[in-house]
């Protein structure tokens, strides 16, 4: 509880600065401009909702899921994403979670790689090759899996000791500052109602805000003309922080997702979303 006091205190300082130093009138002008810009951006996003190209990735993922592939010439239909073999509906919303058979906490993508290896005989190197290229197989499968959780509540209680440990590490990583810009995830994501440029930023310390973000990933990013999964999103946030690139499917990325999904628990999945 004690660490939560940080942001309200900082916000108060900001408010003091704006009103005392710059004057209420000036602040008022700035807010007026903001509102028009924000309204029009809302309109922009609403128009994009009409047709989300992520549905094309969903289609591709479905085809990959149901097509026999690999040395074992098998489909992924018996893949166990946590609710049992072949039980796909709602499974993504409960990830990451601990899997006894691999003795690891896994997110959707790392679990899909496990399934590809065990069911299809496709090794991790092949399964993940070019994963970050637009429309990659693994991202398509993840998008398909996430879409099969539409309407399900995110539910990551982190009750298992290993999940609890991942949550502890995930929170630690969220606040970890380093590099030439002193950034951590918290730099952009621990304040309410803030924007970077015109992009609103979720505050992952606040449940409702964390939910509004996490329920829409994976998402089609219009600036990239591609669907990004949460793995990709996090790896790129870290790139923007000017850190080195973390490994795909690495423990750090899974643990961060445990923290984010835990905080967003209760949110109803709407993925795939569409974003800037």
């Amino acid at each position, binding site marked *: 509880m004690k660490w939560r006091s940080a942001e309200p205190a900082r916000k108060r300082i900001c408010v003091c600065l704006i009103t005392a130093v710059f004057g209420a009138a000036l602040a008022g002008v700035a807010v007026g401009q903001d509102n028009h810009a924000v309204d*029009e*951006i809302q309109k*922009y996003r609403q128009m994009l909702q009409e047709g989300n190209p992520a549905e094309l990735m969903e289609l591709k993922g479905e085809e990959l899921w149901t097509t026999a592939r690999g040395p074992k010439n098998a489909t992924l239909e018996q893949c166990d994403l946590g609710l049992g073999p072949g039980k796909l509906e709602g499974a993504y919303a409960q990830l990451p979670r601990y899997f006894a058979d691999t003795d690891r906490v896994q997110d959707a993508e790392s679990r899909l790689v496990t399934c590809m290896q065990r069911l299809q005989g496709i090794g991790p190197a092949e399964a993940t090759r070019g994963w970050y290229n637009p429309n990659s197989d693994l991202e398509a499968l993840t998008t398909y899996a996430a879409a099969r959780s539409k309407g399900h509540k995110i539910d990551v209680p982190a009750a298992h000791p290993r999940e609890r440990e991942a949550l502890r590490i995930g929170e630690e990583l969220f606040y970890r500052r380093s590099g030439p810009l002193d950034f951590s995830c918290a730099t952009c994501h621990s304040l309410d109602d803030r924007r970077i440029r015109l992009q609103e930023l979720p505050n992952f310390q606040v449940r409702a805000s964390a939910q509004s973000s996490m329920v829409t990933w994976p998402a089609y990013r219009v600036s990239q003309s591609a669907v990004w999964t949460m793995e990709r999103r996090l790896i790129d946030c870290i790139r*923007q922080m000017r850190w080195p690139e973390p490994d795909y499917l690495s423990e750090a990325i899974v643990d961060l997702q445990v923290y984010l999904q835990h905080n967003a628990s209760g949110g109803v999945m709407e993925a795939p979303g569409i974003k800037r």
Partner: protein
Amino acid sequence: MQTRRGFLKSSGGLVAALLAAGFLEPGDLRAEEWNKAAFETKKMEDLVKLLGGTGPAESAEVAIVAPDIAENGAVVPIGITSKLDKTRAIAILVEKNPNVLAAMFSIPDGTLPDLQTRVKMAQTCNVFALVRAGGKFVYAAKEIKITLGGCGG
């Protein structure tokens, strides 16, 4: 709910379908081939001339439905409606793109002059909706501001 089946594996059928459309008038957009020259024009007036028309004049009967601000120039949603009788063709132009023409549509009888698509914009500028109705070219304009979102890198 939705059925889907690929039916066309080569381009032959498409050209035939476009030829069969019969939506064009002589000297107008040519259905049988992509109009390379049209997509190389730099100004709306030049495009209209190329298509055999004059003008165009601004018309309140044509409307552009689009946000004032787009968060990314790579995807700008544009809706166009025309209240003019005999609207036979609609084109979307982006004033400051390297080539001005983004897309043109022919509107056969029975299809409403009301469509939506998405275009790329290199920078803040006017978008034009060019309409050919009753043999005349008219247009509507709307400025759309392209902003930067996100971290900037």
